[in-house]
């Protein structure tokens, strides 16, 4: 290999350079190599880097995370009890520290034309099924954390849907993190491909056992064929000490519909990148988001929705509640290419600040190169209206409860867009709990 990495991420690749040869076909090795070169060619982003203007990597680099090549086998299905959501009936896929754990997963009955499972297993069994799909949606020029993920590409989750297949029950993808002696990074890579007219629901959850320190750098590639429909609920509830990075790369063919609901509650430092590319006309992409940034927590969202073909619709609706020394960053970009007429985009970011020392940095951007479009964005930052609080208090409701009720009302708009009742209850409860213990200064 070409010497050391100039940018402090050597350890993220430490296990990668030798090992990949054993896993998967040659074409994948080539892609890993290209990605490694891309990592080497980049320097660590600083506040001078536009995409990292408000987000410092200092804390993450100080931890000295390393990729560790060992799987945890000690877990039993019983250990999952505390993290499962009661009443949620799903095809369950469990990853432990980024590795697919078949002994914990319950795939259940699957209709013909659906393949679910671990990436590594499929690479061994049928690499050709992945050849034209893996690492294709994310693009050639990969930013640092995507390139790191590709360079260390090794395991993850795969869902392949043939034409017109419909899955009634949701797929539940659980990222379970278990603390280890040394701080480690897991870089799972997921691929979800829906053929023309296929329909599915994916519930993606990030959870941990204990409050350990670790880092997740997950990447999802999602491709929707013509008329395909995907509902995607993402609930990030990492350990309070964790660092969380996730990149979602979405490609939509004509008339396809995607709805993603991004709930961010956990991790002390979390960055989410959502990248949408429309490939066919009349596709719809709906991105909803709710984040709670509590004391010393950072929630960072980056959206990049490119209307490159005419007549597509996108909605971006993100809401945040901040308390303690919480910080939130929202950086949303909607771009409309020349000739992408009749594009319709509406972006909104609303923030509720509950404490003196919270901070919000928001940057909703529009880049419009066509004239017959409907594009708008709106942002607000404010606190709970004293009148509303007074109204509730005058009816005998205590101040903390009134505040909580108003916050839940604010959050409710997003929570409602989750697909299952059990999930909505689970998230409402979690939000309520966090608000209850929230320091208001």
């Amino acid at each position: 290999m070409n010497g050391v990495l100039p940018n402090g991420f050597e350890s993220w690749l430490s296990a990668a350079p030798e090992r990949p040869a054993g896993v998967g076909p040659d074409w994948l090795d080539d892609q890993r190599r290209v990605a490694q070169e891309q990592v080497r060619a980049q320097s660590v982003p600083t506040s001078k880097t536009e995409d990292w203007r408000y987000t410092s990597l200092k804390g993450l680099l100080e931890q000295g995370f390393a990729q560790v090549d060992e799987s945890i086998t000690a877990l039993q299905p019983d250990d999952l009890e505390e993290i499962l959501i009661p009443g949620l009936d799903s095809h369950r896929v469990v990853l432990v520290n980024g590795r697919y754990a078949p002994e914990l997963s319950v795939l259940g009955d699957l209709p013909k034309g659906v393949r679910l499972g671990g990436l590594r297993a499929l690479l061994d069994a049928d690499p050709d099924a992945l050849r034209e799909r893996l690492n294709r949606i994310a693009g050639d020029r990969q930013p640092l954390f995507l390139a790191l993920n590709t360079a260390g590409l090794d395991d993850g989750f795969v869902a392949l849907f043939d034409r017109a297949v419909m899955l009634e029950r949701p797929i539940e993808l659980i990222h379970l993190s278990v603390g280890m002696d040394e701080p480690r990074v897991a870089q799972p890579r997921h691929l979800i491909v829906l053929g023309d007219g296929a329909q599915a629901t994916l519930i993606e959850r990030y959870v941990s056992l204990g409050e350990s320190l670790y880092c997740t750098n997950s990447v999802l590639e999602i491709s929707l064929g013509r008329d395909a429909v995907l509902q995607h609920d993402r609930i990030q509830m990492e350990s309070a000490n964790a660092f969380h990075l996730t990149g979602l790369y979405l490609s939509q063919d004509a008339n396809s519909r995607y709805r993603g609901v991004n709930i961010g509650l956990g991790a002390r430092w979390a960055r989410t990148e959502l990248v949408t590319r429309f490939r066919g006309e009349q596709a719809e992409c709906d991105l909803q988001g709710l984040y709670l940034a509590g004391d010393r927590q950072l929630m960072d969202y980056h959206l990049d929705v490119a209307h490159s073909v005419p007549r597509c619709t996108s909605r971006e609706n993100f809401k945040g509640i901040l308390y303690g020394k919480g910080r939130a960053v929202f950086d949303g970009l909607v771009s409309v290419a020349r000739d992408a007429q009749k594009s319709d985009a509406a972006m909104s970011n609303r923030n509720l600040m509950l404490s003196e020392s919270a901070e919000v940095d928001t940057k909703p951007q529009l880049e419009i190169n066509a004239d017959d479009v409907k594009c708008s964005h709106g942002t607000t930052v404010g606190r709970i209206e004293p009148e509303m609080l007074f109204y509730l208090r005058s009816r005998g409701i205590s101040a903390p409860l009134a505040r909580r009720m108003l916050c839940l009302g604010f959050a409710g708009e997003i929570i409602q867009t989750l697909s299952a009742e059990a999930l909505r209850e689970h998230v409402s409860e979690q939000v309520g709990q966090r608000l209850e213990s929230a320091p208001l200064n």
Partner: protein
Amino acid sequence: MTSAQAVDDIVGSEYEHGFTTDIASETFPPGLDEGVVRAISARKGEPEFMTEWRLKAYRHWLTMREPAWAAVYYPKIDFQSISYFSAPKRPEDMPKSLDEIDPILLDTYNKLGIPLEEQKALAGIAVDAVFDSVSVATTFRKSLAEAGVIFCSISEAVHDYPELIQQHLGSVVPHTDNYYAGLNAAVYSDGTFVYVPKGVRCPMELSTYFRINARNTGQFERTLIVAEAGSYVSYLEGCTAPQRDENQLHAAVVELIAMEDAEIKYSTVQNWYPGDAQGKGGIYNFVTKRGDCRGARSKISWTQVETGSAITWKYPSCLLRGDGSVGEFYSVAVTKGRQQADTGTKMIHIGKNTSSTIVSKGISAGEGTQTYRGLVRIGPRAEGARNHTQCDSLLIGDRCSANTFPYIEVKHPSANMEHEATTSKISDDQLFYCRSRGLTEEDAVSMIVNGFCKEVFNELPMEFAVEAQKLLSISLEGAVG
């Protein structure tokens, strides 16, 4: 041949024939070094402190890099190929009559309804001293002096009021601020100085237009306005009439200082040469404008109508330092042909109960590109700060583009911050409605566009607003269809 060249040729042709001999000595050869900076200062007979100030800026400028983040594209500027000093034109070098002026320019003057004598003045024709506005200007100066308002060129002020200049010049936009501000501090040619004493309400709208001696202040203009406690001043910059200039690069600096309860209203109409149909030869307008609301309850209001220049790069800003101070920004920017505008504002809320309003209207036609870039920062001590931002873009034609890049940083929970942006085109329904009532398409568009910009025009002084409306219609002529 471009029309700018046409003007240049007319101007240039005269010294081909050797009418004058000493022109070379009036204009510095291209290039910039310490010697040139010293020479500029010496030429203007500046006191020692000014020379040192320029040199300090120049030395710092050498360490700076040209910014590249704006969404504007132009060939690299060679700063060594620019001449940094040229004495004002002498009457015998100017065109002798309107016949020598580009007919397109005259046509525009007529459409704007500019009187003949003024047309001559605008076109740079040597005019007799009996010309109306000279006497007007004299009257103006008299009543200003009575009120105690200082209104003169920066060069005069450096001599006559050195203590005010030393105290305030560069205190809002220091030479370290940005590349072009640094360059300006080193080589600024001239500009305007306004000082309004305590409690004085300036009796009239001030405008460079009436400051005859300030003609040809050149490409590196510098403006400083100081409003002492409780005073009020309204200042108009620029002119609706198209301005031609042989200097392609304009890097001006404007500093406003408002003390307790003072109010400054600064209005700009900019209509510099935008270049030919291919965008060649147009003016690069890289301006740093900033207002400092130093005192409590002070107010600074920027209003701008930007229709000219090939490239506009400007962000009039407000530092809201005083408690309860107010910042406002109203802007209409029009880009057509190959024009590019990257403009917006910064509202920095530092004091308590500060409030700011931003209304930005962008109109892109043809292959014009337009970027709103703004920052609203609410600092950790800015309790009760409020901001309302609205930026709307109107697109005419499918080759133009409009970008919106707002930055919002909030560090106090009591802040109330709203930002809205929309991008749309003139709807067919609106057009159809107007046309069914017998308006031509062009009139209909001009009517709709004027409605779109009304919020901003309302902020302009009366006679300016009327001219701005006409200007907008002319700017958009031929853009539709």
